């Protein structure tokens, strides 16, 4: 590879600009955030001193301060509120409206897009796939993460072992998909296999297969969701491992004195103790699984019956120009996610109360 540094110069300059801009903006924000509270505290101090000096006789007190605090809260909330409005609320309403219109968004069609969603065999396969994803990924990823966290807990090479599993978290979905595409890669029989899976398959005497075309028993969908599991297991492991470490040592010791074996320790003590963390992990993975798009798009583009709601939504809206049907899929996805989010929020609130 010849690499002409001079020719690439402008790109490096851009990179440098980017870095400088990032440091200036983020650093500036941090400085402001750091400075404001102490400034306010100093002002309050001064005012309280002044109040104390006049013996607190002046009734300048609570009313005005409450007003001022309300104003401050509004000031802090405004930027986030504005961005939410522009980025989430308005598009959501617009998507909802579009889902009742035809492909070119010119005429109202009522519930036609929704009846399409539940009647076409292709879309039904998409729904089936989404169901497979949302059942298997949280279940398997959490189980793998949990088993790994328990096995590796207080082992000698715990830190190394944990970072090995956690590493995939740092890779983007697209990057991970490309890696796994190599794992599933196909070369004709007789040629040198470059895909790990086919090589193993051949060693055991099989004929090399185009794995991502295997639609039987939704095998290709399962192969796709393995990528997601590979990524999410690390997340599950880290959170659950922290929860396991937070179990008080004396409870574990009390259980040992009470006579538990390793199996009972896991089911009767460890698992109930980390239940809140377990729920958080399952819910978080469920939500990101429902929204999965990158993996499907990178590996099969939703072909060969591997589409999921999010990838189908993108294809309908932006590839086939069927904005109405795409929007209907988007709304449907939203409806699927909402109950999980509500459950999650309830759960968090309950935890905070106890």
């Amino acid at each position, binding site marked *: 590879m010849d690499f002409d540094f001079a020719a690439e110069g402008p790109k490096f300059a851009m990179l440098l600009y980017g870095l400088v801009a990032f440091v200036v903006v983020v650093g500036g924000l941090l400085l402001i955030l750091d400075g404001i509270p102490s400034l306010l505290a100093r002002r309050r101090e001064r005012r309280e001193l002044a109040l104390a000096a006049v013996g607190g006789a002046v009734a300048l007190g609570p009313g005005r301060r409450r007003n001022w605090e309300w104003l401050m809260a509004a000031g802090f909330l405004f930027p986030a509120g504005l961005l939410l409005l522009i980025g989430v609320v308005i598009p959501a309403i617009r998507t909802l409206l579009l889902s009742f219109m035809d492909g070119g968004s010119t005429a109202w069609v009522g519930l036609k897009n929704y009846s399409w969603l539940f009647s076409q065999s292709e879309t039904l396969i998409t729904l089936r796939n989404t169901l497979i994803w949302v059942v298997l990924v949280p279940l398997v990823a959490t189980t793998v993460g949990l088993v790994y966290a328990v096995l590796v807990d207080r082992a000698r090479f715990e830190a190394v072992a944990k970072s090995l599993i956690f590493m995939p978290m740092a890779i983007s979905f697209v990057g991970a998909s490309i890696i796994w595409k190599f794992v599933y890669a196909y070369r004709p029989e007789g040629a040198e296999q470059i895909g790990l899976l086919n090589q193993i398959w051949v060693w055991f005497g099989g004929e090399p297969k185009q794995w991502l075309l295997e639609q039987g028993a939704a095998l290709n969908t399962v192969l796709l969701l393995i990528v997601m599991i590979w990524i999410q297991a690390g997340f599950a492991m880290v959170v659950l491992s922290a929860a396991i470490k937070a179990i008080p040592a004396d*409870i574990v010791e009390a*259980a040992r*004195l*009470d006579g538990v074996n390793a199996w009972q320790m896991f089911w009767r003590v460890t698992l109930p103790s980390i239940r809140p963390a377990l729920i958080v992990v399952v819910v978080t993975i469920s939500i990101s699984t429902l929204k999965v798009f990158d993996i499907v798009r990178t590996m099969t583009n939703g072909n060969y019956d591997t589409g999921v709601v999010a990838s189908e939504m993108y294809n309908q809206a932006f590839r086939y120009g069927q904005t109405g049907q795409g929007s209907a899929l988007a709304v449907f996805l939203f409806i699927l996610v909402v109950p999980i989010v509500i459950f999650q929020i309830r759960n968090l609130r309950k935890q905070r109360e106890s």
Partner: protein
Amino acid sequence: MATVTYSKATRIYPGTERPAVDHLDLEIGDGEFLVLVGPSGCGKSTSLRMLAGLEDVDEGTISIDSRDVTHLPPKARDIAMVFQNYALYPHMTVYENMAFALKLRKTSKAEIDRRVKEAAGLLQLEEYLNRKPKALSGGQRQRVAMGRAIVREPQVFLMDEPLSNLDAKLRVQTRSQIATLQANLGITTVYVTHDQTEAMTMGHRVAVMLDGVLQQVDTPRALYDAPANVFVAGFIGSPAMNIKTVQLTEQGAAFAEMVLPLTRQQVATAHADGGNGKVTVGFRPEDTDIVGASEGGMPIVVELVEDLGADANVYGHAAIGGASERFVVRTDRRHMPNMGDTVFIKPRSEHHHAFHAVSGSRI
């Protein structure tokens, strides 16, 4: 119903030189209430955890009823433990907490129910059986932890500072409850505390530890009357004993204008082994009187008077051998001196303790 024997039991934590528990020899009789006491880091908790099987024994052996349990896992030892923070299972109700160990041993449902109800009755926990630990007060949690140990009907109870998280009033109350309970159940108990009052009031015998080494084990009265060395003398009793190292004369120990008599035997022993003409002598504040100027007491200048209601502690200093030494005397409230006064103090005869100036052991 069991005896416990530590025989040269030693624990050296990995990466440390000094043993946390150093060749501990201790025999605990059947049904006895033995208290391990000492300052923090003295190895008392480690000793208990070695008996529980939660801590390895690096040297020596531990046996329960002449059965060597040194390397047995905790569950094979038939012991129950009450932890400092109670260690209740937060996801189980009080009933389930108490029943857990029995359930694991496949005890019949009826038997579990009988034993849990019985223990709950004993500890006044009946109305809380369906509550989770977080809905209980500190004192109730402590009782559940006791209940969990009782239903096991173990050979030995182990208690690791079970009262240290309770407030002062509840601690005194629970102290006597535990002692009564133990007396009624008759189960051999090893109890760890850093509080000498707990040790003295609860234990049939008390084992005092320092730096991993057992200093003395005896009845509370014997510990108080005849401490084996300077450490035990200073540790047991409140306010602490006045302990000073002073010049040795033919008659005894020379304090300022006062000589505490020692026997010829004691003087000889004090001189031996590098005693160098010095002797360490202690006398308890409560064994000391304020006397008249002509009665052979030692003059001290009063610097603080603590009025305790029933009586008072008088703190003061005297110059001995050029250095200013502090003394404390417990006195009747009617004879309370004022700050700055000079009073004469004198230990009652035969109520002072002599120790070797170098080794610190009783002579």
